[in-house]
């Protein structure tokens, strides 16, 4: 399938989903759906580095939080424009601020992408488990930084009050949902494009055997940097609308362990070698978690993830996609 056709299909599917949810007319569905979509973006982003290149990133929460705090920062700047800006710049700034949410998303992506680039340079000499530890440390460092930065609320947290409605759409949550839907389309298209390009083959050689890739003249460092930037930027973009979704952000929630765990577990459960794998995993796990949150308790979420992950690692190490492949090849042989 050609990419334009694929994007068109995505848009049709997205629009259909949106219209159905709107017809049901229950805001809770949008709130729950937003979280699932957010996890699709996060896990697809994680998979670009973790699945395609084989570099396991434990710091997803850090990149996500970078997007979150870029938004919080710019929101706070807007609240205090008159104190922060010199008189000469004030009219200009008042014209620009408050920044619309799509711009915040873009900026969140840029900040997280730049940090991704820096992380890449610093850590990509590390391989395997050492890289994973370094990314884990990155998230901790960033969290410590945010905790001690009072402008964005420090450990106290920050309130971000979203408008209650937007023109045309109505409820603000529907606007957020729509934006996240667009990010899903963006990230999945990105992943699919990579998979079918020279870049994707380059990534696969890094995953399979980095030394051999180098011996073949594959520019491994450059490819890895592309992967860290893309993956980081998409995670940051997923985080940027979060303060407007939740209304109150503190470091503990923005850097929550569940982001790091989920963005690893979802691709693992879905399957890491195909663009649809992370999406499958995110829809399955994300929905399950939402159901568990309302029926049992929100604390049971990580337990579900853990149990499912153990199950899949034992029974289907290549995820749902892998299961499906074995099943179809067995059928074709029979």
């Amino acid at each position: 399938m050609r990419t334009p056709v694929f994007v068109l299909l995505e848009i049709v599917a997205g629009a259909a989903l949106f219209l159905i949810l709107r017809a049901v007319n229950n805001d809770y569905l949008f709130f729950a759906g937003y979280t699932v979509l957010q996890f699709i973006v996060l896990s697809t982003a994680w998979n670009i580095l973790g699945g395609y290149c084989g570099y396991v990133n434990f710091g997803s929460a850090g990149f996500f939080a970078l997007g979150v705090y870029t938004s919080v920062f710019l929101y706070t700047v807007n609240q205090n424009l008159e104190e922060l800006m010199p008189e000469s710049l004030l009219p200009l700034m008042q014209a620009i601020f408050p920044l619309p949410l799509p711009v915040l998303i873009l900026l969140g992506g840029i900040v997280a992408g730049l940090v991704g680039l820096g992380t890449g340079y610093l850590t990509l000499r590390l391989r395997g488990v050492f890289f994973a530890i370094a990314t884990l440390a990155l998230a901790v460092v960033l969290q410590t930084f945010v905790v001690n930065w009072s402008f964005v609320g420090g450990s106290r947290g920050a309130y971000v009050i979203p408008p209650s409605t937007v023109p045309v759409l109505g409820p603000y949550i529907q606007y957020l949902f729509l934006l996240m839907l667009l990010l899903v389309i963006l990230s999945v298209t990105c992943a699919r494009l990579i998979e079918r390009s020279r870049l994707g083959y380059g990534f696969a050689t890094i995953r399979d055997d980095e030394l051999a890739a180098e011996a073949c003249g594959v520019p491994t460092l450059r490819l890895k940097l592309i992967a860290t930037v893309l993956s980081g930027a998409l995670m940051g973009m997923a985080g940027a609308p979060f303060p407007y979704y939740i209304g109150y952000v503190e470091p503990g929630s923005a850097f929550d362990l569940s982001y790091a765990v989920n963005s690893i577990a979802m691709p693992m459960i879905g399957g890491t070698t195909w663009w649809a794998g992370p999406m499958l995993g995110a829809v399955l796990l994300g929905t399950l978690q939402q159901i568990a949150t309302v029926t049992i308790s929100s604390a049971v979420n990580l337990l579900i993830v853990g149990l499912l992950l153990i199950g899949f690692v034992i029974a289907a190490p290549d995820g749902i996609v892998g299961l499906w492949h074995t099943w179809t090849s067995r059928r074709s042989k029979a």
Partner: protein
Amino acid sequence: MANSDNSITIERIHAAYSAVRVLDDVSLTVGSGETVVLLGTNGNGKSTLMKCIMGMVRPYQGLIRARIDGQTHDLIGMTTEEIVDLGIAMVPEGRRLFPRQTVEENLLLGASRRLARARIKDNLDFCFELFPRLAERKNQLAGSMSGGEQQMLALARALMASPRILLIDEPSVGLAPVLVTRTIDAIKQLKEHYNLTVLMAEQNFTQAIRIADRGYVIVHGRIAFAGGSAEELNNNELIREFYLGL
């Protein structure tokens, strides 16, 4: 093909993995169109020397120069991809294929070098002609082939880069004796076809010496003996006794 002058000169390099010294004052030349064999048992620095040439290990002292088509390049400080781009390819020890890619994909990945991309079709045809087995198994996953077939694929993959100089690290590792003979023959054949300059690290003395013009014996990171010809290596009592235990 205008590969008139392709050689490697290594002058007095020293290399170490942190505190462990691996190469100690090693000098070596591979002349244009020559096949030079680097002999030595495990842990004497053969692979490290190869990696130094490819820019994967950086020696802390000494010079490595390559002449490619008459132009001299200083390899120290260059990245591996730049070195491959010049026209130096390596067949890594233990083959190092991409096991989850098909045979054909492995070959195409060998043509990462810019110049080689234009010649993909010709090179692919030649590889399939030289190793018909690879053509049969074009769509099979590389990791599912036998050791001998994998070695053929590793050689073919390096050729896809249209190299001028080919480094081969221990082609006989893990192969049955009959396959070692076949592999060495294949190396000779493709060397002649492409008029390659070849540096080969090997433990299997008798096999390697069949196609080598010259050879070096490396012991504990030092060149213990430099043979001016294959004959000289073969007839040297010291080597036979001290190093090979024949």
